[in-house]
């Protein structure tokens, strides 16, 4: 079995994505566009938290850490979290929220499909279980995506397009290579490398955006280059933060070009927005260390 540190990083990457985006989704509770959607989106938030819990528990049961699920979810410092930056961005409007949910859940479904054939039996079983619930998340995201993109409201379409433009660069960061990834792949723990998953996800995303005449989002991202704005809107200096691969349209499909440079969420590099989220999310746990609830 692969190096325990690499396996822990893999689990934390998956679990922290779910925890942090689940926390962001839960901030819509009471504020979603209407009551039925409020319940549906809150349920999705709870699913994501349940998935994080399952993965934290697996890390403990596999002997990769002494920390229990509460300590893993709430007892770490911000730089110890391994979620992609996409998951921590503020919710913005409903257009951004749906754009992010679509980008995230299509990517999550793809990696869970891959992990369902992992050589690590317990992880494969967890991935298969989560994948069953993720189907609903993808159905939800697609249903909203179609209505905002192709519905009667130009405002809604514009908001979705703005959301996609804002989120697509961060979404590439979901596929940032993990420390120790080569070994994880060689031993079948991670059946497909992140770059391979990125290629498939980007091609499928490109087709969806073309069908909705929204592929200009990718064109604009390609023209903007590889600079990623930080939370404060500043452009980091080269090497300071994660720079994802470029995207280009070639031979009838969207493909990535080049690799990732600089540290991103998988190496504990987060946006300023994450600190505020972390303070809120972990405040109670930190205020009463050792308390049992």
């Amino acid at each position: 079995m692969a190096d325990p540190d690499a396996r822990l990083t893999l689990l934390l990457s998956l679990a922290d994505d779910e925890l942090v985006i689940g926390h962001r989704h839960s901030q819509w509770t009471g504020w979603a566009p209407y009551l039925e959607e409020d319940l549906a989106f809150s349920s999705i938030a709870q699913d994501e938290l349940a998935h994080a819990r399952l993965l934290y528990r697996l890390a403990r049961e596999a002997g990769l850490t002494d920390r229990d699920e509460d300590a893993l979810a709430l007892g770490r410092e911000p730089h110890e979290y391994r979620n992609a930056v996409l998951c921590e961005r503020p919710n913005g409007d409903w257009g951004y929220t749906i754009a992010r949910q679509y980008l995230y859940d299509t990517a999550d479904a793809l990696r869970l499909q891959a992990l369902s054939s992992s050589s690590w039996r317990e992880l494969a079983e967890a991935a298969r279980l989560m994948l069953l619930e993720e189907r609903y998340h993808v159905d939800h995201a697609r249903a909203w995506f179609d209505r905002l993109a192709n519905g009667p409201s130009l405002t809604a379409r514009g908001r979705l397009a703005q959301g996609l433009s804002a989120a697509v660069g961060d979404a590439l960061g979901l596929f940032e290579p993990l420390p120790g990834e080569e070994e994880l792949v060689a031993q079948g723990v991670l059946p497909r490398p992140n770059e391979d998953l990125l290629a498939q996800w980007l091609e499928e995303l490109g087709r969806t955006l073309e069908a909705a005449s929204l592929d200009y989002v990718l064109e604009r991202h390609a023209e903007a280059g590889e600079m990623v704005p930080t939370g404060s809107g500043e452009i980091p200096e080269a090497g300071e933060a994660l720079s994802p691969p470029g995207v280009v349209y070639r031979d009838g499909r969207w493909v990535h070009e080049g690799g990732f440079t600089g540290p991103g969420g998988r190496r504990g590099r987060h946006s300023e927005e994450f600190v505020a989220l972390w303070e809120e999310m972990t405040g109670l746990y930190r205020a009463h260390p050792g308390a049992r609830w």
Partner: protein
Amino acid sequence: MEVWDVFGKRTDRDEFTWVGSILAPDLEMALVLAKETHFRHKEGVAYAVRRRGDHELHVGPYDHDLLGGLTDRSYRRQEAYAGVGARLREVSRALAEQGLVIDRPRPPVRRAAPGSERAAHREQEEAGRG
């Protein structure tokens, strides 16, 4: 938006019965929303929606295991709250030793003074119930 009636089966042997209604713009969205508005607590094994005024019933696409989720949802059940009061007192005591107060004492329950107008009203209400 249109009103969609939602139907559910408690067990495989049951017929669909009406459980409530939702607002949704079309069939696909009605099926997406009805699942979580009416079946997220494992209320049944199958669900369906019907546009109010129509006759056609549309059965939800999710397997019965997926109604209410597969992962740990114990916090949603009432028994998950058993012993919360005792645990709260235990935590309060432990934190009080560190000089921390997490829960102020509840104000005493105000009973109506005997012979007052409020007490008479309450007696009348209770007699009516009996």
